[in-house]
Structure formats: structure tokens, C-alpha cells
């Protein structure tokens, strides 16, 4: 199948915890192809998760190599089945948006470096250490697999300086 339309909230699949892939077969490989086609079709898209095209399985693709934020530090095209973050380090805030929640952005705090373990579409296990923008992209896509949208993680939508201070 060619690229798929990106589902938008409030489509219920976006808030569901996705099922683990039990067996990596041709169906999964074709799902990965659909995700890649969908990612390549979206202008500037750096990742797509299976629930965004209506499939509630723990599969996502990430490729930040063409993004100005990620081109100097990346692992190329990543096709991740049952990804798990096994280590994380650092915290940084980035203003995020999402194709499934158009016209809204917000500041989200994420780990600056992560170790991710996953299966490749050929079934082989892989572990990578990602940092910077690639790490943020992976965390954003992996959140989709748990039904978490960036809206669930927004720290502030506007600059908040000493908002809590009380005045006499």
C-alpha cells in the first residue's frame, strides 16, 4: 500500500496502548513499508507511529537524517518493532508539534540521550544510543505506542516567569 492518511485526534486509536508485535511476518514488513511511505510523503516528516495510520501495534519509523536539526547526528532510517527505552539521560525542552494534533505546539521536556532496544523488520535485535534531536523524535514516536500525545506532556504553552509569586 502507498502512504496512508495521518489520523488526527480525537480518533480513538491515538489514545490506545498498542499491542506488542508477537511475530514479525510479511504483514509487519508491509506495515513498516506503509509507515516509511507515509513518512516520506509528509513534507519534513521525521517519524510516524503505527497508530497514526490506524494500526494499534508497537511499530514506528524515524529518520531525522534530512532534518536540519538531526542531520549531523543520526542513525539514518530506523524501523523499530517493539521498541523499549532501556536507559535515558539528561533533560531538555523542545517545542513540539504533531501531525495528529495540527495547529498546536507546546514545550515538552524529554531525555537528551536514550538507549533503545528494538527488533528490525527482518527480526534481528538491535540496540542504539540516540541523542539530541533523534532521541526526541524517537521518544515522541514511542509515546504514540502508549497512547500518549505531546499534549499530555506539555510543560508550558507560554513563557511563565514567576507566575506563582503573590503580591501583597
Amino acid at each position: 500500500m502507498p502512504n496512508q492518511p495521518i489520523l488526527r485526534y480525537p480518533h480513538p486509536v491515538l489514545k490506545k496502548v498498542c499491542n506488542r508485535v508477537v511475530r514479525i511476518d510479511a504483514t509487519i514488513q508491509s506495515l513498516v513499508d506503509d509507515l516509511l511511505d507515509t513518512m516520506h510523503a509528509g513534507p519534513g516528516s521525521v517519524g510516524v507511529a503505527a497508530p497514526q495510520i490506524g494500526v494499534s501495534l508497537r511499530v514506528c519509523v524515524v529518520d531525522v537524517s534530512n532534518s536540519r536539526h538531526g542531520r549531523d547526528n543520526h542513525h539514518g532510517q530506523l524501523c523499530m518493532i517493539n521498541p523499549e527505552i532501556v536507559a535515558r539521560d539528561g533533560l531538555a525542552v523542545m517545542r513540539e508539534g504533531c501531525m495528529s494534533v495540527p495547529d498546536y505546539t507546546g514545550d515538552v521536556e524529554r531525555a537528551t540521550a536514550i538507549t533503545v532496544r528494538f527488533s528490525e523488520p527482518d527480526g534481528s535485535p538491535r540496540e542504539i544510543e540516540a541523542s539530541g534531536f533523534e532521541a526526541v523524535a524517537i521518544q515522541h514516536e514511542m509515546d504514540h505506542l502508549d497512547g500518549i500525545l505531546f499534549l499530555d506532556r506539555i510543560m508550558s504553552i507560554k513563557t511563565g516567569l514567576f507566575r506563582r509569586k503573590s503580591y501583597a
Partner: protein
Amino acid sequence: MTNQPETLHYAVSVVGKDRTGIVAGIAEVLFRLGCNIADSSCTMLAGEFAMILIVSHPRPFSKTKLHDELKSVCDTLGMSLAVRTLHADEVVRKETSDEICMISVYGADQPGIVYRVTRELAALGVNIMDLNTKLIGTPEEPVYVMMLEAAIPEGQTPEGLEALLGNLKKELSVEIGVRIITPVAF
């Protein structure tokens, strides 16, 4: 024949001493009248609570009714009120491909910080999208903090903009920093 839009839009602003129930009071009126709160920003400034809302309603609708109903609740809450009808061409979502920057300005409080900085930015074609200022520090040593979100024109860089603000920085003895906060879309 003029093209009449199906939906009417109003800019509503409400300001007054902070207390609980202001938002609920305003929202109740809007809900009862069938109005939609399209965009809004509400915040506490010193002890004042300030609401700015873009409200919409399908035709036909009476601005007088909206104003009178809001006025009634505002009088009860001790708030000031302004309602302005927006023209159809004012109600557009601006799409920008410009780089969005956070410009932070802070230093010893003095008259003219906002004016001097924003005048410079306007001259450079920088469009302010959000602006927060705060007076902090102690009465003996007041410090002024200004945070601006702005779209910088194509071809400009944060470093370039910071350099262009360099003279002002020296003249006012304030810190001025510019950094990119353009959202990344996943």
C-alpha cells in the same frame, strides 16, 4: 453583493481584580448564548486577572446581546469589559514559515526598555507574537525581564539579530539573547 460570512467573530477582553469564578462566570454566559471560544489567553498580571478571547457565533447573532449579558456578569465580578466585532478578513490563521525566536531581555529596571527594544525589532521587520514582561528583584534593585516570541524575517538568523541588537544592549546595559524556538513537527 458582499459575501457575508456564516460565522461572526468578536474580540472580548475582560480585566479586573483576581478572584475565583471569573472564568466560570464569563464562560457560563458564552455557553448560554451558544458562543464558541475559538482562541483565548488569560493570565494573572500582578493582582489583576486578564482575559482575551476570540469568540464566534453563527449568524444571526446580536453583538448587543453578547455585550449586555457579559456586562451584567462583569459588573457582578467587578471587571471591565470590551467587545469588538472582527471583520471576516481579520479572522485568519496566520501560517508562517519564518523562524520563531525567543528573545530574552533583562537588566536593571529603567524607563524605555520595552519601547527601545520593540522599536528596534519593528525596524528590523521582526513580528512579535507573544510578549511577557515582569518586574522582579527587590525594591532597591529592581530588575526588568522581558520575554518575546517573534518571527524573524527570512534571511535573518538569531545570531545576526542578536548582533544587530548589540548597540542597544550596550546602551541600556541589559542582557539580550536570541534563540530559535521554532516548533519541530513530528
